[in-house]
């Protein structure tokens, strides 16, 4: 089973066994621009992604609305 990475409405798939950092780079996502969560917990770039993992990526850049 592949690893799923979900950023807003987009879904990416990678192979298990790689680090989060490698997965993000493979998907063309700048690590600085997201926070990754798995099962409600924050995970870091060195985390090894396991088969069937679903990683939700929270975009960190906001604009316009802040006062």
């Amino acid at each position: 089973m592949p690893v799923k990475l979900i950023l807003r409405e987009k879904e990416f798939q990678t192979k298990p066994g790689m680090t989060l950092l490698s997965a993000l780079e493979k998907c063309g996502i700048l690590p600085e621009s997201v926070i990754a969560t798995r099962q409600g917990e924050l995970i870091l770039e060195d985390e090894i992604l396991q088969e069937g993992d679903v990683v939700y990526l929270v975009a960190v850049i906001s604009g316009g609305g802040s006062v």
Partner: protein
Amino acid sequence: MKCRKCGGKAAVNMRQHKLALCKEHYLEWLPEQTERFIQKYQMFTHDEKVLVAVSGGKDSLALWDILVRLGYQADGLYIGLGITSLSDSPMVAGYSAESYRLAQKFADERRLTLHVVEVEQTYGYPIPSLAEMTNRGKGRPCSVCGLVKRHEMNRIARDLGYAVLATGHNLDDEAAVLLSNTLTWAGECLLRQGPVLPESPGLARKVKPLCRFYEREMTAYALLRGIEYIYQECPYAVGSTTTYNKELLNRLESQRPGAKLNFYLRFLQARQEGLLGKIDGERRETLQPCPQCGQPTSAPGLCSFCRLFARTKNKEVS
């Protein structure tokens, strides 16, 4: 990666500080650092009433949360801009309606005081309509929005007796503006940019206690504290210069950890040492009160805010 303090599993890694922390220690560290910056830049004291400008976004709600945790007298101000989503989907709530809901929910859950100003109820038009009626913001109301927010924040702070107005600007916000102003050598803007804009007659002191935290760190704080914030971006901010600059700086940061922090801190140092000229606090003597609203303005006659509404009334007549 392990927490530097307890050796447990780290939840946040700050490469620019070579510091990784677990949830518990990160949630202690961030308010401690905020307190340090409040004192370092002499932003305010525990005896002063602070008005926090809240938008329903992660930064402003996190700031309010931190100030309350630190024991400051912090109330909130929400300015309703009347921005609806540009999407036709009925599933997507209006941007302003949703941001207000989240700001009010945050205040209610913590029994905090939230002052609310609705621009349309107070002045007759929501921000997008105001922008359409003036040359200042046709198609992109950000300029009108900024002008109205600055005026209203200052008006409410003054009318309700708050000594200090705090905003949730983070380091990415500051670095993006700094990059923009540097690329255009906007000297006057560079001189005004800093963690504190001192008070002067008619103007509340403005402070940015989060100005040394990366946006990523503020997102992590909001998530770890369980703060529900508006995730949807302002529909008018999509594709903005600020967003573009933030992405550029993040590319630099990913190759050179600490680049954003250095860019901002070295700028503050240069500004403080007078390398950019006299800083803003020494220049306030040139301001005079607007004959209509009384708020200070640099040009003779009406201030920008009152001129905006004068133009709007002319449009109504014509």
